């Protein structure tokens, strides 16, 4: 017996399916192996269509037939191609001559999908259906979709039972004459303008529905009667928030938060309802949501910052920790800036939690948190900040010193004073700058004492200048006298160091701006030291121009 060529090819094409199922799942579309598979497969079809115009396979549970010949058999349940088609109701599939390479690829891609996975919401027939193939037709048996055996005949006999008695056509005929005339319904043709309205409707319809859903859920939330239902509706609201954030629809969530907030602010609100409404608000600030927001910010997509701010306004304190976490992960400066602002807004709701961010192992996060605490300006942060003064990273230290200076307090003084003896000049200078925010006499005295000490003259010019710049904050007579004294000091040793002291004292006098010291400064205009001459000159000009 000779086997016809088309039968051989029909068998080959079954192999094409099996191979395609594997290859297309494994390789991306632009991979050479993928492309080669498509090409080879299509050639098989092409060959086949030189013999026949249609290629029809019949599926049974454990075998596939071409014409009446078996071209595939597999008694197993696993990896059974026949069963794979059969179980979704496919009974026949026909490829027609004219099949395009695209159609074949689409077909192979569908059968190579992983239908065992939960996430896939379509079965193979639905996917075929959606493709609307021109040259691939299939026959399905849909009885398995119905839930009971033969509901059809059951319903039909039921109807027959109802109509056991013969109908009464004659009566109908007689009654008809007594009837009023049929209602004249004027059917008007649809006109162009109406079609335009419809187009607009269809266009609008394509928009996101989540806002509408939120409104509905909110209505349901406030209208349910049984308390255990609150939780149920809140759970749906939470899912909706998650969905909206996933779609980048911040505005929908913001609007919901506004309504929830108004609800929770009401005095007469039921305790359970309050709890559930809060649960939704808390979710909007949960790690899941905030992480998604962070990704959104980092992706560089346009974000309406005003909208974002309003969103933040409605969050609760639970959002603080997730934001701190996100802060450490963001890649773009722009995104970090937005998150920092968000924490400035949220921080006051829970300073203590915010200060936990000070312990973050990443130095820049710690520095950002310090910055945030400074911008919030809550003195309760001081104790936590004081611990950070010992931070190993100098950038953090500088930030915390500055912040402590701005926040002030008795403990701060001690810490800052210690910083004046730090081995790093940047730290010492930062401390001096910080002192300019503290206008206490103690600080003034301390600064003057330190200047008067013997070691002072060995400090760098930069540091000396900072001392005197800070001192200029006290514009009182005591400081003036002190400065005059420095200016008048004489010594034969270390004259260049002495000139440095005088130059920065002149600088300080200039900053204080008292006219009384002009004669003194004028005297130094002609000093032998170029440094002192210049500083005296600048100070005079400053005082003169301030008049």
């Amino acid at each position: 017996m000779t086997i016809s060529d088309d039968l051989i090819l029909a068998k080959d094409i079954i192999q094409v399916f099996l191979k395609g199922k594997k290859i297309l799942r494994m390789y991306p579309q632009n991979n050479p192996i993928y492309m080669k598979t498509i090409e080879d497969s299509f050639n098989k079809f092409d060959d086949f269509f030189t013999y026949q115009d249609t290629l029809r396979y019949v599926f049974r549970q454990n075998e596939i037939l071409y014409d009446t010949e078996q071209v595939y058999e597999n008694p197993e349940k696993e990896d059974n191609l026949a069963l794979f088609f059969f179980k979704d109701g496919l009974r026949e599939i026909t490829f027609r001559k004219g099949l395009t390479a695209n159609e074949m690829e689409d077909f192979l891609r569908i059968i190579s999908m992983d239908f065992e996975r939960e996430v896939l919401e379509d079965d193979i027939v639905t996917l075929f259906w959606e493709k609307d193939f021109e040259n691939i037709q299939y026959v399905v048996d849909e009885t398995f979709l119905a839930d009971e055996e033969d509901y059809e005949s059951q319903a039909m006999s039921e109807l027959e039972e109802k109509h056991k008695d013969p109908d009464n056509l004659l009566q109908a005929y007689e009654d008809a004459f007594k009837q009023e005339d049929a209602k004249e319904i004027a059917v008007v043709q649809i006109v162009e303008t109406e079609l335009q309205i419809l187009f607009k409707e269809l266009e609008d319809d394509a928009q996101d529905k989540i806002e509408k859903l939120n409104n509905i859920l909110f209505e349901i939330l406030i209208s349910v009667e049984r308390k255990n239902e609150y939780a149920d509706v809140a759970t749906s609201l939470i899912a909706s928030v998650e969905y909206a954030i996933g779609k980048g629809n911040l505005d929908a969530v913001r609007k919901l938060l506004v309504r929830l907030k108004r609800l929770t602010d009401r005095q007469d609100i039921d305790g359970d309802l309050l709890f559930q409404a809060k649960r939704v608000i808390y979710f909007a600030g949960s790690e899941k949501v905030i992480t998604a927001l962070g990704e959104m910010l980092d992706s560089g997509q346009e974000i309406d910052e005003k909208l974002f701010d309003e969103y933040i306004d409605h969050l609760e304190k639970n959002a603080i920790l997730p934001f701190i976490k996100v802060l450490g992960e963001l890649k773009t400066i722009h995104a970090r800036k937005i998150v920092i602002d968000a924490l400035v807004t949220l921080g006051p709701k829970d300073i203590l939690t915010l200060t936990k961010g000070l312990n973050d192992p990443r130095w820049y996060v710690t520095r950002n948190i310090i910055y945030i605490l400074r911008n919030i300006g809550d003195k309760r942060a001081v104790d936590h900040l004081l611990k950070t003064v010992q931070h190993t990273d100098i950038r953090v230290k500088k930030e915390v010193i500055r912040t402590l200076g701005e926040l002030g307090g008795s403990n701060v003084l001690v810490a800052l004073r210690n910083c004046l003896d730090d081995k790093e000049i940047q730290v010492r200078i930062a401390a001096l700058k910080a002192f300019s925010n503290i206008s206490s006499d103690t600080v003034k005295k301390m600064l003057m004492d330190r200047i008067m000490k013997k070691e002072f003259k060995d400090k760098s010019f930069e540091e000396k200048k900072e001392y005197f710049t800070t001192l200029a904050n006290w514009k009182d007579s005591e400081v003036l006298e002190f400065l005059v004294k420095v200016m008048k000091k004489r010594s034969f040793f270390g004259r260049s160091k002495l000139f440095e002291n005088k130059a920065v004292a002149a600088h300080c006098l200039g900053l204080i701006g008292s006219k009384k010291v002009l004669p003194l400064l004028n005297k130094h205009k002609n000093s032998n030291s170029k440094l002192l001459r210049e500083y005296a000159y600048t100070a005079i000009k400053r005082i003169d121009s301030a008049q």
Partner: protein
Amino acid sequence: MPSKEELKIQKYAQDFVNQLSVVLRTSQIHDLNNVAVKSNIEKMMSHVSALLGMENIITLEVRGEFFYFNEYRMRYPLEYLLNFDFLMREFKKRELGSFIIVKNVTLQDMQTFIRAFIESPYATNPYERIEEKMKGIENIKIDRLKSIVEEDFLDVRKMVKKSYFNAVSFTKGVIHKIKSGEKVSLKKAKRVVESMVDHILEQEQLLLGMTAIKEYDEYTYHHSVNVSILCVALGQRLGLNRKMLTELGMVSLFHDIGKMEIPPEVLNKPASFTEEEWKVVRKHPSIGSRALLKLKKLDELSIRSAIVAFEHHMHYDFTGYPKITDPKKLDFYSRIVSLADQYDAMTSARVYSRVPMTPDKALSLMMERAGTQLDPLLFKFFINMIGVFPVGTLVMLNTKELGLVYEGNQIFVSRPRVMLITDNVGNRIEGRVIDLTEKDDKDQYSKSIVKTLDPNKYNINLAEYFL
């Protein structure tokens, strides 16, 4: 998926048919030498030559309610709706069934056809007149409109019927499962709806016929399927694509899912509801909405379903229920479902214990509500779809014969096909289907509907005729 080439042909074909309609309409008003008409004809000829460059022949055929272009049923974009409808009407008026153009067609050939076409409606035998005038034209051929052969329909009818009952049975199963907290397979639901969508695209009237029977015991489930069918049929008229139609079909199938919590003795109560019972009934939109959201992970489909379940009784003007604090324009699908739902509910005996209305009465009541309870524009499309005398209506004709409306006519909405069930003195006769667009020798309609009656009142078993 059709290839690029095929898509191109489809597009040219749509443009050609649209342009043919424009040409025939303008030629009815102006002379063929008019500048506007001339340029319209030229434009059409350019479509013709483009098509003939790709295909050897252009065959435009009317089958049932649709145009077929070279054997493929034409789908067309919504903006062509009016022109396609016009052309369909004009073809049918002249009993013109096919219009075939072959290569080498000239402008003169086409002008001859246009003249023959526009001069024919005044003739008693329009088709013959066109034929006569077209004698000697080789490159354009025409053929008479074929009436649909009933036998061919039998198998289709069986299939459609099976698909309908499958859907009902499936819906019943789903509702029971949701009620008992079991997992529901949405894959299956999709399959059920896709199958309905296919049937509606091909055999709309058959499926609409299925919805005419309302006497089932488990009417709630039939109601869901009926509403779904009516919605998809309307959606088709509105130009939704297959995927959107499936979505609409799914959403509408589940619109009343919240009724599962209403005790059946209330739901099927033969009398009016008490205030207490009404309170329970009014909750079903909200219950349904919640149940649908719990069914699966949130996605476009579940969101849509929940919205529609919640809104389907709210009414276009928000006079319905539930009442909410800040109502926003109803969702597009909600407005579609409202129409289908009201229609099916009013014409059935069970939903809300109403006395069933004849379809035409229901429609005239809905007409009054268009603009208040119902979206007026969508209603216009709805009535165009379902006809003034929907399938299943018991009618008396001016010839005093009784009949059942058997199949709507989308073009002549008040002239459906009718199955005669008595002669002119009231004697039962074996069902013969006639078409009310048929005319007599004097170019007058042979038969018209004058009265409508309720078939239930006379114990007429619609299923006998329709299933």
